[in-house]
């Protein structure tokens, strides 16, 4: 299996020629520490001569000192270097290891640890071609075997190796192997895994890893490495319809305009008709440009630059696709979501979605259910915690080209990014566009926000008062409105308490409901601003994410965030509505400041310190700000 040092020694040119022709395979190993995962990976590194002699000496010493094999070589120690780092608090999601044989280079995604397992495994599986599911022959199929297999299936890996390990511990029993295999196949079929190769191995002793083991004469299938060296993966990738997401519009001079990207599926040749999405224009490929010369054909996996026969407007993030077999374009989808953030996912909260090279604003409009990864049961859910998986509807702020994840991983898989921390907090798999996405259109209106506002001689504006309950938001907002009214301005005050009686009557005070409440108020405020009004919003709005969402929805230049800054102790002391008392007595839950957080605005347009200024003075400050902004003139 391995490139022998002898060949490198006797004929290096030949060695390099062989090495050059190798293909690449990525696989993920799934199993817990006890299944012998580290031993298996250590064995692969060892067999492919990647362990230097000086390392080997150290390994022999370590094996005697801390090994678990009674002083014999403990191959697991070759890869178990991560424990110390975990103690240091460094998050390790996936470790990547490399080894190669005569035929292939391999990249192994190794996902250590029990906690965070879903997040780690999903990350590792997203780029794997093959999954290796390790089962301890003594224990058989465990609930974690099922969990791993479900994630493998969810992430669209179709080829699975069921490695029945530690066969030496059960006397190389054929019966044990067959029983485990039969049970696994039955389960796997139910979750859509069909292409399964069962290989009986002992990673520790090396049985059936590189050469057929004399201990298993009853087994006539491939060895572990033999299978990985020959399993076909590229044909399927290339047989799919052509897709390339435009990463970079290359315009070095006026004579050249090329679209650079990596082909994610299919094949492309000069003359091929391609469709450009989401704008849905058709042209033909003129040249397939690379540094090494133009190509007659480029295939999935290659980075190229395409020029087209027609001058059409294409930007980064657009998708070039086979003209007759192109992706759909939509802004509402059903998708699987895998949550990876420390903060829970709340429907209605704005995130950024990135698929291919395209980014769009996204919210989960409805969470339908979450999946118990151990039992595969569906349960109702209003949010997703770290490592939870659910199915829901995603709504975007613009239409994007997409494919179902099942057919095109790279145009159907997406990440969700938190808008405040910029962290990647979720991953998702697009399945299909919702029908209403295709049937709901925008009606163009001739009279717009500016036209309506011009008639009343004012600029529309949303003034968003945020702060703790009892901070004085409504009192100040009321005073501001009275003054504006006296100036003859057209206004409306949306009050948090009042909308609860109508618009948001069906919502409670959980985080998820608060997010939805704010979304509704922001939408209504936006409509009112469209109508030309100066809108005052008085709402606790405790989360920065939603205040940011409101700002973006309405437009930053017509949005003014007023932080009514009253310390909790002061607000509680006032307790005009008696709510703090109730909350402290436990009669009211999810009360902001008591048992629900308030995220202090970091960059408000106006900060009103109510311990320093009275209502009148506070209102003056707001009026002055609006006048400076040009909202109205006196």
């Amino acid at each position, binding site marked *: 299996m391995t490139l022998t040092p002898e060949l490198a020694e006797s004929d*290096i040119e030949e060695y390099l020629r062989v090495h050059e022709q190798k293909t690449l395979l990525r696989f993920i190993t799934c199993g817990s520490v006890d299944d012998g995962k580290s031993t298996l990976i250590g064995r692969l590194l060892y067999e492919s001569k990647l362990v230097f*002699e000086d390392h080997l000496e150290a390994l022999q010493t370590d094996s005697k000192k801390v090994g678990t094999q009674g002083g014999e070589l403990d191959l697991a120690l070759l890869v178990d270097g991560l424990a110390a780092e975990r103690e240091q608090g460094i*998050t390790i999601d996936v470790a990547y290891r490399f080894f190669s044989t005569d035929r292939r280079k391999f990249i192994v995604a190794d996902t250590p640890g029990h906690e965070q397992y879903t997040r780690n495994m999903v990350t590792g599986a997203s780029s794997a071609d093959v999954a290796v599911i390790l089962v301890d022959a003594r224990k058989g199929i465990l609930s974690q075997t099922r969990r791993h297999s479900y994630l493998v299936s969810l992430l669209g890996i179709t080829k699975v190796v069921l490695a029945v390990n530690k066969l030496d511990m059960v006397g190389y029993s054929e019966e044990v192997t067959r029983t485990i295999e039969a049970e696994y196949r039955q389960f796997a079929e139910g979750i859509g895994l069909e292409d399964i190769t069962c290989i009986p191995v002992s990673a520790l002793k090396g049985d059936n890893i590189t050469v057929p083991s004399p201990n298993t004469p009853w087994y006539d299938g491939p060895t572990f490495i033999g299978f990985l060296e020959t399993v076909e993966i590229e044909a399927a990738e290339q047989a799919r319809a052509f897709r390339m997401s435009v990463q970079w519009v290359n315009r070095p001079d006026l004579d050249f305009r090329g679209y650079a990207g990596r082909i994610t599926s299919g094949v492309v040749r000069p003359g091929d008709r391609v469709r450009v999405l989401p704008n849905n224009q058709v042209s033909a490929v003129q040249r397939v440009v690379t540094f090494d010369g133009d190509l007659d054909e480029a295939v999935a996996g290659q980075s190229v630059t395409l020029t087209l026969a027609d001058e059409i407007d294409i930007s980064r993030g657009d998708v070039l696709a086979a003209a007759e077999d192109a992706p759909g374009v939509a802004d509402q989808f059903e998708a699987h979501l895998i949550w990876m953030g420390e903060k829970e996912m709340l429907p209605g909260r704005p995130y950024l979605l990135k698929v291919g090279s395209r980014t769009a604003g996204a919210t989960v409009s409805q969470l339908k259910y979450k999946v118990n990864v151990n039992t595969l049961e569906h349960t109702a859910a209003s949010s997703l915690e770290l490592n939870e998986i659910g199915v829901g509807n995603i709504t975007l702020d613009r239409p994007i080209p997409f494919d179902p994840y099942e057919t095109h991983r790279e145009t159907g898989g997406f990440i969700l990014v938190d808008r405040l921390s*910029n962290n990647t907090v979720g991953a998702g798999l697009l399945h299909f566009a919702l029908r209403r996405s295709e049937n709901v259109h925008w009606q163009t209106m001739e009279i717009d926000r500016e036209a309506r506002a011009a008639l009343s001689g004012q600029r529309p504006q949303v003034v968003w008062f945020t702060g703790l309950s009892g901070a004085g938001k409504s009192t100040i907002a009321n005073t501001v409105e009275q003054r504006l009214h006296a100036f003859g301005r057209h206004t409306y005050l949306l009050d948090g308490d009042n909308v609860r009686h109508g618009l948001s009557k069906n919502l409670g005070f959980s985080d998820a409901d608060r997010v939805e409440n704010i979304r509704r108020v922001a939408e209504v405020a936006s409509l009112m601003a469209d109508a030309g009004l100066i809108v005052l919003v008085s709402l606790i709005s405790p989360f920065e994410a939603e205040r940011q969402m409101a700002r973006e929805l309405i437009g930053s230049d017509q949005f003014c965030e007023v932080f009514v800054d009253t310390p909790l102790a002061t607000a509680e002391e006032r307790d005009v509505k008696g709510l703090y008392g109730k909350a402290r007595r436990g009669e009211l839950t999810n009360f902001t400041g008591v048992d629900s957080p308030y995220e202090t605005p970091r960059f408000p347009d106006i900060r009103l310190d109510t311990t320093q200024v009275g209502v009148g003075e506070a209102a003056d400050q707001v009026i002055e700000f609006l006048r400076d902004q040009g909202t109205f003139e006196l």
Partner: protein
Amino acid sequence: MATLTHLQRLESESIAIMREAVSESERPVMLYSVGKDSAVMLHLAMKAFYPGLPPFPLLHVDTTWKFRAMYEFRDELVAKLGVDLLVHQNPDCINQEVNPFTHGSAVHTDLWKTEGLKQALEKHGFDLAFGGARRDEEKSRAKERVYSVRTSQHRWDPKQQRPELWSICNARKHRGESIRVFPLSNWTELDVWQYIYLQDIPVVPLYFAAPRPVVERDGTLIMVDDDRMPLAPGEEPELRSVRFRTLGCYPLTGAIESRAETLPGIIQEMLLTTTSERQGRVIDHDASGSMERKKQEGYF
């Protein structure tokens, strides 16, 4: 049906990483150390933006103590390719004449390279820097991500590292933060050399064996590259056929005795060394290993 070789795949992936990173940053830069990994990274950048040139400058954080051959090679290559090169030398180090002999290798490297890099990034306002680190360099790098987010103080916050799925990169950052991107993450040392061989990529001649003046100190062969090198009484440089596995500041880089004068020759030596030579050259191995480590502290 065409089948891509592993090097074609690695090449395409690295190109995709570069195009994506450049598109999502305001002021990208490529760290260029004149070594073999930098050579491959620069070659990939030339490919990624062809027929245009890479839309970013190269940045060499210089210590003034590199081999003369490295400076010659660097300047010739940059002129030939027509790319922009910025050279930064920490002015504090120039003033205080920081050098490996009086200040020791740790202080020397930290001030020239680590501090120098921070200065250069801040001076030019770079928000994204490509580096040539690979995951196979040592066991602990296996978990490193392609994108590494740094705070405005250039600190690496392990809690803020982002999961990387499919080939989607998340390059979003706050003002003042920057991102290091490692397009060669999935390349091994053998891949790098093989690619250099296949693509005929020019590398510094120091990688090839030639007669060079060296002195032996604590079992390590140090090349006497210029007259700044203080010689002990009675110490005489002697001409030996040597080459270098890694390149850095000449007084800190151990040479190995070798007759490998061609790329296949040095690849052969590398492959066979792993099974025989390294254990016999523990000190040399440690020396090159610690160079790698310094490189990481400094650059990564």
